[in-house]
């Protein structure tokens, strides 16, 4: 009839952990290591996807039209420019401008070696991308055969960049046509292309004579203030024929991300990597908790002899597991934070800590420690109070 009090006054779990400092530090180090592994795996995965959608994230549009055949930004295929005029007839649409995109072979001005870049062309009265250096250099694009170069491009460009930073013009060839680079902007290399170059629509078609202005790669639609993009998208979908897809900006980003997640092993590799980090953590914490339980077995048997229930001891072990989870998470996330910064500086990959990822890893850590705790408590059953006599 007597009930064990629900709130224990003596925090046995904390006291047991804190009294054995070396074991506590080893546990924290182990969890920090496992957390760091998980953070790196998840971070790289997101960064890789993000690095392929930099242009998409900066696109100056509320809605984007693309061909249903389009696969990713270097393989958008085309659809008729007429669709843009049709979209413009809608009341909520403020503007509908074409974007031309294609792969081109360009000769590295420094090394003279040819490489593939993404060539983007649009009407230079309005920037297709919300990138400051592009917006500031629109006038230059009105000149014939002038391009802006992405300084985040992959490859040996240090001398080229130095010249351009000084304001000089750098000349090179794209598909045997001489062009002049007169400015820089920053986006970044991706899986699709080693780099990007931006020019006007006229220059685009001068360079790529096989392309015709009446066939556009994408349509950039800006809406009037107060118009809901989703509703407008639905309206356009209903009225425009099936040779064009209507996407919101978010869907446009998702479109690219989905291509890379489906067509590469990125998803599988990094999920596997995260799982490995998780398993490493479970093993480490289990080792520590089970040696902790073994060390305290006589004490636990004493408690059982005194009349403590098995459930009390189980709770103590689980509390230890959760305390370790929290204590190990802190240094783990701090180390990951530092590694992210290091990687950003070394690779230009957009590797950033996010709150949602931190929460995900924290929850994974707690689950990891709970699983270890559950396995470690198997030994508790062998704490037979009769054996201490």
């Amino acid at each position, binding site marked *: 009839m*007597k*009930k*064990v*009090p629900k709130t*224990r*006054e*003596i925090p*046995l779990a904390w*006291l*047991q952990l*804190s*009294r*054995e400092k070396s074991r506590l530090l080893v546990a924290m180090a182990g969890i920090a290591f496992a957390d760091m592994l998980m953070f790196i795996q998840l971070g790289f995965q997101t960064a890789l996807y993000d690095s392929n959608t930099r242009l998409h994230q900066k696109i100056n549009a509320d809605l984007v039209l693309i061909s249903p055949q389009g696969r990713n930004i270097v393989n958008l295929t085309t659809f008729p420019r007429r669709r843009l005029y049709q979209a413009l007839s809608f009341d909520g649409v403020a503007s509908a401008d074409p974007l031309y995109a294609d792969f081109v072979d360009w000769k590295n001005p420094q090394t003279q070696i040819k490489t593939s870049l993404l060539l983007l062309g649009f009407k230079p009265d309005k920037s297709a991308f919300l990138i400051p250096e592009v917006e500031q250099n629109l006038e230059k694009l009105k000149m014939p055969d002038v391009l802006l170069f992405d300084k985040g491009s992959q490859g040996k460009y240090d001398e080229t960049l130095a010249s351009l930073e000084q304001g000089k013009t750098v000349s090179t060839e794209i598909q045997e046509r001489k062009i002049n680079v007169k400015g820089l902007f920053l986006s970044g290399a991706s899986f699709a292309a080693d780099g990007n170059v931006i020019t006007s629509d006229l220059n685009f078609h001068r360079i790529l004579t096989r392309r015709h202005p009446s066939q556009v790669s994408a349509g950039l639609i800006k809406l009037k203030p107060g118009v809901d993009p989703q509703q407008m998208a639905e309206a356009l979908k209903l009225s425009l024929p099936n040779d064009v897809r209507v996407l919101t900006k978010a869907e446009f980003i998702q479109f690219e991300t989905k291509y890379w997640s489906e067509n590469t092993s990125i998803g599988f590799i990094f999920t596997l990597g995260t799982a490995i980090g998780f398993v490493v953590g479970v093993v480490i914490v289990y080792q520590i908790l089970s040696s902790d339980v073994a060390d*305290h077995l*006589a*004490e636990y*048997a*004493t*408690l*059982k*002899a*005194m*009349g*403590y*229930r098995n459930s009390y001891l189980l709770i103590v072990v689980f509390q230890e597991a959760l305390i370790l989870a929290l204590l190990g998470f802190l240094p783990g996330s701090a180390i990951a934070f530092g590694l992210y910064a290091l990687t950003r500086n070394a690779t230009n990959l957009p590797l950033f800590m996010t709150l949602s990822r931190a929460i995900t890893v924290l929850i994974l850590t707690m689950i990891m420690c709970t699983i270890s705790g559950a396995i470690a408590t198997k030994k508790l059953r062998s704490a037979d*109070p*009769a054996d*201490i*006599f």
Partner: protein
Amino acid sequence: MQTLTSVNQTQNITNQAVISVRNLNHYFGQGSLKKQALFDINLDIYPGEVVLMTGPSGSGKTTLLTLICGLRSPQEGSLKLLNQELFGANQEQLIQARRKIGYIFQAHNLLKSLTALQNVQMSLQLHSNISPTERYERATQMLEAVGLEERIHYYPTGLSGGQKQRVAIARALVSHPRVVLADEPTAALDSKSGRDVVNLMQKLAKEQGCTILMVTHDNRILDIADRIIYMEDGVLVSNDTGKSKSNH
């Protein structure tokens, strides 16, 4: 005590006995390895008695002790502890029985991560009708009663063998149990400490009116017993039901 003695001599009222054992047999092992450890034990222990159990190693006295205090389930026979029949009792009933008993073990088994005071409080925590403040006070008082008021915040590593045993006594007695069971409490101690410990146990037990059942080899302390039980090969060889002290 005299009154109780005369009452018990004239009547054999077993429901007054704190511990009552009838026809208890106990076995270890299975099948062909099955070995009998206790043979037809019959025993009554009355309130306020100080009973010593002694006998050679392997005589079954520890086994009997573990059965009496609910750490093992009786396999055959009857064992009543404070009127609770332990034969066939479920886990919850065993747990409740254990809470009514104070234990003093040979190896102290104090929790290393807790101070002397916290160790004693762990015993009080099992009783929900005692508030945290009261727990602290009672634990402190108990430790003062065993002479350790200077060391209530010491950890077991900072205490001598005798001091640790005194903490164990405080822990066993702080909740005022009706029965105290001790297994070789003086084994690891020198003469003086051992004597002090046993005197302390006896004094506190008399103050609280509880019964002491002690397993021991130690010949130096046999004089504190009201009764001595001698076991050999799982059989209760000698058991004075009378109250006269007998030296073995």
